[in-house]
């Protein structure tokens, strides 16, 4: 029965308008973000630019963070992302004085005049280049030397204080300090390329980048499919006809859930064929042994738990409330996850986010070193979604027996 029901549910999904809208959004997202994906070429010595890398060198973290603080203090304008959106912060005199104190303790510089001089001195010492348009280009962001004897722990305390003064979401909050963006040398670039082609076998790195772009939308869109599916019976006046059937609630809910997951994964798998073929062409021409299954592994390992969760949230709250409340709940969760993820874009910090980010084909080390963190994250979300689906089946079963009714006067009521 389960198999036949599953096939019928897949057909229903394939005929639903919302499903094709989701597919269109995924295609649009892919086309705009990854449509013109460039495969990283082997670095050549003497290249203008080798890009940036993340460094966990504590001295480097202090230098770049303090450099940013000096510049923002001097401009009297700070960039923050308190709930993900950009916000320019201007401080009052008292707060400005507090930042000044922090700068003095960390760099020894006192007041705007000394800060301006330090900035000018630093930029004057940097090599100047001009771009194709003839404009002056600096390849390195401002760095500031910490005062002698400043420990990293004290530095962290002061940066936390600065972040607090700025209202949170600044470049000085904890997560932003865990790594610093530093320009890569030729040797660094060669090493990253080696990891991409040997450790990641090329496709691994690009599959991660693909997952990074897709996971953003897959953290939200499945909820719409789940909500419309669960509300369809009620809207069609078909609830009682289904409720009085012999089929078990577990079979009904599980077949719906599985069919939605498969139907959502299918377009993602189909889209992955495009970057995969690009990678395979490049790998073949460059003699790289590419992993042909990399995209499949990442889709099922990285994306599927997010799809599972968004779908399960949709099913659970729709059965619980007989409304589209799940869209609001998932929407709020998605909003927080996406915008707090901005500070972890470069990967290596996955935490417990529903939407783990790794917006680069590089940083294999970050991925490798934090793989267990990512794996735990994904396992937890997959488990949560299975638990939610089990609860959905329970609620559905109670509704079939008339033991759970939703009335908004007293919300849902479970009878004995």
């Amino acid at each position, binding site marked *: *029965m389960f198999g*036949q*029901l599953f096939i*019928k549910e897949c057909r*229903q999904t394939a*005929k639903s308008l919302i499903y094709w809208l989701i597919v269109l959004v995924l295609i649009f997202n892919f086309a705009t973000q990854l449509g013109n994906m460039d495969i990283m070429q082997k670095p050549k010595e003497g290249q203008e630019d080798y890009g940036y890398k993340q460094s966990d060198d504590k001295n480097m973290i202090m230098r770049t963070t303090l450099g940013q603080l000096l510049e923002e203090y001097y401009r009297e304008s700070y960039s923050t992302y308190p709930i993900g959106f950009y916000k320019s912060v201007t401080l009052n005199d008292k707060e400005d004085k507090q930042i000044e104190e922090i700068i003095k303790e960390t760099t020894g510089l006192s007041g705007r005049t000394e800060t301006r001089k330090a900035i000018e001195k630093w930029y004057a010492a940097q090599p100047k280049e001009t771009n194709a348009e003839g404009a002056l280009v600096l390849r390195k962001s401002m760095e500031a030397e910490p005062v002698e004897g400043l420990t990293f722990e004290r530095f962290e305390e002061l940066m936390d204080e600065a972040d607090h003064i700025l209202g949170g979401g600044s470049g000085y909050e904890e997560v932003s300090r865990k790594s610093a963006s530093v320009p890569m040398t030729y040797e660094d670039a060669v090493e990253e390329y080696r990891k991409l082609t040997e450790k990641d076998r090329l496709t691994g790195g690009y599959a991660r980048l693909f997952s990074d772009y897709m996971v953003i939308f897959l953290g939200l869109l499945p909820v719409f499919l789940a909500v419309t599916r669960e509300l*369809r019976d009620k809207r*069609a*006046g*078909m609830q*009682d*006809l*289904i*409720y*009085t*059937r*012999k*089929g*078990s609630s577990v079979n*009904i809910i599980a077949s719906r859930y599985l069919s939605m997951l498969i139907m959502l994964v299918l377009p993602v798998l189909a889209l992955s064929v495009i970057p995969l073929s690009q990678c395979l062409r490049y790998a073949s021409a460059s003699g790289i042994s590419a992993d042909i299954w990399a995209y499949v592994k990442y889709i099922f390992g990285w994306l599927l738990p997010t799809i599972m969760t968004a779908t399960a949230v949709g099913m659970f709250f729709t059965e619980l409330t007989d409304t589209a409340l799940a869209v609001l709940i998932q929407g709020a969760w998605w909003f927080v996850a996406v915008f707090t993820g901005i500070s972890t874009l470069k990967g290596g910090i996955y935490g417990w986010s529903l939407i783990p980010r790794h917006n680069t084909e590089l940083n294999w080390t970050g991925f490798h070193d934090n793989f267990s963190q990512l794996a735990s994250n994904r396992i937890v979300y997959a488990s949560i979604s299975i638990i939610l689906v089990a609860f959905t089946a329970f609620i559905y079963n109670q509704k*079939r*027996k*008339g*033991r759970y009714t939703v009335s908004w006067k007293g919300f849902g009521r479970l*009878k004995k």
Partner: protein
Amino acid sequence: MSTTIKIRNLNQYYGKKQALKNVNLTIETGMFGLLGRNGAGKTTLMKVLATLLPKSEGEVTVCGTNVSRAQEVRKNTGYLPQEFSMYPNMTVYEAMDYLGVLSGLSKSERKQRIPKLLERVNLLENRRKKVKALSGGMKRRLGIAQAILHDPKVLIVDEPTAGLDPEERVRFRNLLCEIAEDRIVILSTHIVGDIEATCENIAVLDEGEIIYKGTVSELTGMAEGKVFQAEISKRELETLKKQCVVTSMLTLGNNVMVRFLSDEKPFASAKPCEAGVEDAYMYLMQERGGGDGCLDNYL
């Protein structure tokens, strides 16, 4: 396994409101009518039998299985609710096939049964039509077909003829009678004509209580000698309405031909006539003190 429904001391509550009061019934194979005005508790009783509501108190078994064992009961019951539809974008065949899977029928069983059932309800030629394109009568017939798809021993039909035109109503009643040959069909309705045309055994529910159970002829027997007919003036009609329950009237110029209930002949021109189910039902309701002197509410 016996094809019997047994209801013993069934009480049903919605919060503090008692919807069914000490209901006792035994229903055997054939058509069984459940009659009562709107809000009498018919749908509640149907839902308990269809396992859509848990019983509050009492004992209810369907074909020997307690209704608390919902999944077992569902194997033997088919249900056509008062308000229903199906996925509008599915074709008639697809909707039947989907519900067939939910009933646990194999692919070959569905392939064999669905065309036969659609033919039986005269919808075979419409099998590729979308559900949303069906008329009210067609939808009701499709409803019956889905309810007997898994060949249940009990078919529960709640207010099936509401909103149907006279032709569809007759067709639907006949269909129910055919289906009831080898199973229990419980027809719940507030339309006396449906019961009169189809059922031998009936029960009348009022405010959650069974106020009558027995055969239709026994019910009509209760009103025997109490039904009269007379041609009176329109002015006299108002007086008569205050004294008796008028079960029908026909205007004839300035006069009215009335049919009414009375324990004895009220005036010389009144002629006794044979009691029908409507008369008997009205008599029953009058005896209970629930009648309002006009049959319109029950038709």
